[in-house]
């Protein structure tokens, strides 16, 4: 086990998520399953393989420097749990 329940609780706190005790033990298990699989992949010798960003050989995809319409302010703020003077209001940052 690489990830402990304490790690998951910490992750939940900084992500502003409320998890029940069952959630914590379930996520600890899932995350470790994923990491165990990564360990398996790590055993492969990739020293002669270039890192691949994508499966398709795509490069140099650019847009021109032309202004496009932004979101309406109300729409931009629609998902904000709290709004103050046109800004996203977030709880105390330093815990």
């Amino acid at each position: 086990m690489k990830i402990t329940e304490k790690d998951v609780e910490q992750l939940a706190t900084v992500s502003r998520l409320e998890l029940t005790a069952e959630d914590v033990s379930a996520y600890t298990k899932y995350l470790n399953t994923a990491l165990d699989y990564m360990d398996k992949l790590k055993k492969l010798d990739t020293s002669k393989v270039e890192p691949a960003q994508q499966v398709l050989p795509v490069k140099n995809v650019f847009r021109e420097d032309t202004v496009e319409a932004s979101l309406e302010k109300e729409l931009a703020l629609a998902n904000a749990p709290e709004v103050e003077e046109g800004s996203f209001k977030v709880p105390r940052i330093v815990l």
Partner: protein
Amino acid sequence: MSKYEAVIGLEVHVELKTNTKLYCGCSTAFGKEPNTQVCPVCLGLPGSTGVLNRKAVELATKAGLALNCEIETYTWFDRKNYYYPDLPKGYQISQVFRPIAHNGYLDIEVDGRNKRIHIRRAHLEEDPGKLTHSGSSITTSHSSCVDYNRSGIPLIEIVSEPEISSGAEAKAYLEKLKAILEYAGVSDVKMEQGSLRCDANVSVRPLGTSTLGTKTEIKNMNSFRAVERAIEYEIERQIEVLEDGGEIIQETRGWDENKGITVAMRNKENPDYRCFMDQEIAHIELTPEWIEGVRATLPELPDARRKRLIEEHGLPAYDAEIITSSLDLAEFFDAVYAEFPDAKTISNWIMGELLRLLNARNMELFEAKVTPKYFAKLLELIKKGTISNKIGKEVFEQMFETGQDPERIVKDKGLVQISDEGQLASILTEVIAKNPKSVADFQSGKEQALGFLVGQVMKATKGQANPGLVNSMLRKMLSQNNSG
């Protein structure tokens, strides 16, 4: 200080002069209502994908070339992961592993000594949003407000090698960097609008040793002068800690401008940003031809321009340095020179009058109303003897405020220099009659007495008499008086 030397590296973030953000088409205009220049990409909404701004890549390349860097022909973006409300995606898309430019330099001069400061790297990245805290500081705030207008604005981060040894050198480095980027047309480099921001890594070590001391990172410096002061303070502080047998703690410290000190902000425990290659922004492959094409668009840079002013116009190095420190001023000089080709006179007037008024009024050149054309015309009026140098300064002050034609000011105010011998003769006779002692002094060989008499004539004519003419007329009249 003599027992220690300081080792300083600067990290400078410079906003690129684009119309739109790095990965989306939102406007980069400064000072707009919060959250009115945002879209799903720069808000980090799920399912959105950015596309790279071609102009930003071009400007970053240009900046790299202007700073004598090597440009990478194959480069990409990486994700730097951290949790902070100004970063809506939970990661910043930056260039961690393969910066677009590296291994450059710029040259500075401090106290007559030249020094080359190397540039380790310059990479493209996005700016985070802007936080406003409810309390006076982040630690005393119960909440904060986030404006994402700035989120996604293209920046280049320019990292120097730790080769800077004093606050004065740091300031000279920033001034040179600013001038180069301004000349290259890469950025507006306005510190007060946040388009140039600087952090400093500072450490000290005993003279003659080569291991680096523990460094602190200094933030919150709002002017080049503040960078200089903060670094000088921090060097002294670290030396004091070491002299007292203490240890330097690796931490981030904020500069308090009012108190003139640095204050511990937070311990830096080497955060692990878990950087990895970004999967959305396509890799960039630049051909050598394309890079050379960008190089061809580089204008004359500050060092070359300074050299030209010295070699072609015969200006002293000091004058050339000041005139080329800002592109606006250098352009102003050239425009005046095109109409009035006497470089030293122009530079005297720029440094003596123009810069004096700009400093006194805390203004930028573009805010002054005087045009190069009228500036040249004023110098011409003085050269022709229409007005004296002294009156010229008065006229200049009015041109500076109003942008008026100097010829018109001279006419309206009746400032034309009196060069009419007949008109001057009566004034001179009067002055001679009123100052028998000075006359006698001069006639007995005291040369200074003549200066006093010239001064009296200038006073009587409110500075309008042609001083050269007054001088020679006085000599003539007094020698006649003497013999007669």
